[in-house]
């Protein structure tokens, strides 16, 4: 008897003891006496405080000239403030008394409160909004907490209600049934916890700048690359002297973050801050031939570099911009005998502190930048996917944008009648269909008449048919900017093959149509989540915005059948050029302005 009892008895006793103590300790809410402007309230009401939130009996609300209507279940109530404001709040029963979280009603009752030890002091006078704690002169920051009516909107942690309080929070939303399920799925304790650990932000502008520069420097991340391309597209036209600017505020106010990326920013920040004295020294440029279809262009320097890379709009070359770098190479011209790369020309000080490399290509390539290598960076070049494929073996999905009675797309009046995008896109798509068929390509249309096709069904059709390419045809509209004109071709995110196809099509379509080439752009430059039809396509996919319906000149072209025919031929020729990995013919180059 002795042995087993000694063992199990002790164990169970200690177990129960531990449970009891921790249990009671967790559940116990401190009792606080409530005072109003330093004087005890009538009836000496007692509140409960869990270290975060104060719960007060409903009598206190009434003492503050508010009224409470308790629901039959006694788990919620409608509080009406002195000013007439009404709010439904959760009620909880603590120590047998119905209580309400003072934070929920403090704003309507025009009170602030301070908890000091076991005394809660309510104050009815309005405090200056920006610095509520200061007016509480006697408050010791170590032992007290001040809340003011200015606080609720700032309460980022407000969604994590203290669990010790166990509030019965029944949704009072009468029409909550219509809310989308998707919007709710991420809610829950985990999400709340992540929010709580988010670093504090000092201000919006530096934060945004920090995230910008951060993503620009992040290398393997697809989004970071989008950023690089985004910046570079503009840089092709004009060397942008302020491109170091986004990272400058980040250097002055380093974001409160930890981890490797942070160090990257910090070191980068220092480089950027000293704009006058660039610290990256470019030593050499080499081309490693992996095989005839692949090459690696390496820029060797004394520190890591995050360059901005983009295809030049008018010329078969890659423009590489390296901020804060000086050229310390033996030459400024490199000739490579690789089938993909002709050579590189370096332009020192293309803009203040900016070194620009022009990589002359002999074929259409996809490129992938590996920035931030210890000794510079690398650009991997290779032929696009499908290169060398026989046209007869290919399936291309052509997607005329919009369609159906509701989805007309954009429209504009032209010579007394309204022109709809859905009609223009269908008309052009049909012509593309004919052209591609004539080339022997298997073509599938997402719609052949004015019928409604959902956004999801379009790429799905391409996926299900194992299509090799997906080309969506659209017409753009810039409300409020009738001058916007030209051809833009979007690709998703930073997909290399789609980007190469977009580059070719922007070139061929704009040239054939006599329109400004607005270039190949990532859809994420427009929408943070990208475009629906491109996002879901599993093959190289592009969306061609042929021209602007809002521009009178573009519109006059768009409605002409011969223009549509030229566009169709350009799209077909662009697809052929992509498959042959051939650089499209270029218009007389508007040589970059440096």
């Amino acid at each position, binding site marked *: 008897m002795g042995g087993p009892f000694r063992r199990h008895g002790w164990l169970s006793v200690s177990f129960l003891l531990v449970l009891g103590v921790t249990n009671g300790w967790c559940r116990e809410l401190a009792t606080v006496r409530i005072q109003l402007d330093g004087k005890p309230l009538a009836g000496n009401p007692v509140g409960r405080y869990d270290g975060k939130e104060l719960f007060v009996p409903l009598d206190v609300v009434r003492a503050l000239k508010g009224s409470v209507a308790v629901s039959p279940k006694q788990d919620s109530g409608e509080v009406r403030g002195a000013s007439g404001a009404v709010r439904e709040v959760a009620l909880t029963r603590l120590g047998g008394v119905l209580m309400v979280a003072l934070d929920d009603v403090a704003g309507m009752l025009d009170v602030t409160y301070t908890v000091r030890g076991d005394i809660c002091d309510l104050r009815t006078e309005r405090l200056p909004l920006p610095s509520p704690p200061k007016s509480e002169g006697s408050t010791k920051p170590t032992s007290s907490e001040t809340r003011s009516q200015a606080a609720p909107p700032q309460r980022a942690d407000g969604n994590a209600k203290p669990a010790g309080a166990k509030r019965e929070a029944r949704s009072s939303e009468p029409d909550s049934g219509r809310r989308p399920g998707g919007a709710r799925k991420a809610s829950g304790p985990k999400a*709340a*916890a992540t929010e709580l650990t988010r670093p504090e932000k000092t201000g919006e502008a530096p934060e945004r700048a920090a995230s910008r520069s951060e993503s620009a420097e992040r290398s393997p991340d697809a989004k970071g690359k989008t950023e690089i391309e985004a910046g570079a597209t503009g840089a092709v036209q004009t060397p942008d002297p302020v491109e170091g600017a986004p990272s400058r505020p980040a250097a002055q106010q380093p974001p409160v973050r930890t981890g490797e990326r942070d160090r990257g920013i910090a070191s980068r920040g220092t480089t950027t801050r000293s704009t006058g004295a660039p610290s990256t020294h470019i030593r050499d440029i080499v081309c490693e031939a992996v095989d005839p279809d692949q090459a690696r262009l390496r820029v060797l320097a004394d520190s890591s570099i995050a360059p901005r890379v983009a295809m030049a709009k008018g010329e078969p070359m890659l423009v590489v911009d390296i901020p804060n770098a000086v050229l310390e190479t033996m030459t400024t011209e490199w000739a490579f005998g690789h089938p993909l790369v002709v050579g590189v020309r370096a332009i020192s000080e293309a803009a203040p502190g900016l070194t620009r490399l022009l990589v002359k290509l002999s074929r259409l390539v996809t490129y992938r930048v590996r920035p931030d290598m210890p000794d510079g960076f690398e650009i991997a070049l290779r032929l696009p996917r499908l290169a060398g494929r026989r046209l007869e073996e290919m399936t291309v999905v052509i997607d005329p944008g919009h369609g159906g009675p509701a989805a007309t797309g954009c429209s504009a009046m032209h010579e007394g009648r309204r022109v709809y995008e859905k009609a223009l896109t269908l008309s052009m798509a049909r012509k593309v269909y004919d052209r591609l068929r004539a080339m022997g390509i298997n073509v599938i249309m997402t719609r052949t008449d004015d019928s409604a096709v959902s956004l999801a069904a379009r790429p799905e059709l391409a996926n299900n048919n194992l299509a090799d390419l997906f080309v969506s045809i659209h017409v753009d*509209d810039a409300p409020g900017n009738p001058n916007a004109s030209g051809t833009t071709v979007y690709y998703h995110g930073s997909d290399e093959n789609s980007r190469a196809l977009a580059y070719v099509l922007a070139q061929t379509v704009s040239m054939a149509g006599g329109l400004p080439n607005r270039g190949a752009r990532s859809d994420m430059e427009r929408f*943070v989540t990208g475009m629906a039809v491109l996002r879901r396509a599993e093959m190289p996919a592009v969306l061609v915005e042929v021209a602007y319906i809002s521009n009178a000149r573009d519109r006059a072209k768009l409605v002409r059948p011969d223009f549509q025919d030229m566009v169709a031929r350009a799209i077909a020729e662009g697809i052929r050029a992509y498959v042959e990995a051939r650089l499209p013919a270029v218009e007389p180059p508007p040589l970059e302005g440096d």
Partner: protein
Amino acid sequence: MRALAVVLLILLMIGLGAWWAYQTYAPSAPPPPGRPVEEERRQVKVTAMDDGAQVQSDCMDLAHSLRAAISRGGAIPEGTRLVSLELTKSGVCLVELSKEFLQVNESGTTGESEAQNALRRALGPFDKVKSLTVLVVGNVFEGSHSGEWSEIPVRGGDAGSGGEQ
């Protein structure tokens, strides 16, 4: 030897007990099973604005910022009104707009992205908002280029940071 084992067991029990208590009462504890999903969400207190918009009471700042963006016009169709606004626990701002907003789908990629980015910019400065869901007549709005506007991050990305011609 036996005494040592008992002490170790007791320590283990203390640890387990503390862990259990923590799991049960810590703020991040999952809700007990059986409670409807509705209750996971933050208690919603609604205040009516002067134009009848039903706004979660502690999100008036969001509503004011959004209304300013809407009334600024631009890519947001004329006559669009804020119908309701709610912020879920996880920081998804559910914004219901009046049916005039559907005209966004008649304005091309440029117009649609400008409208979306105007709303994102209006909510971006508020740390409590992580993403944006736009509803029109009770359904998630589907942009004719960008797809459903459901849980669109309000910060980050390159969209709308420039080049909106």
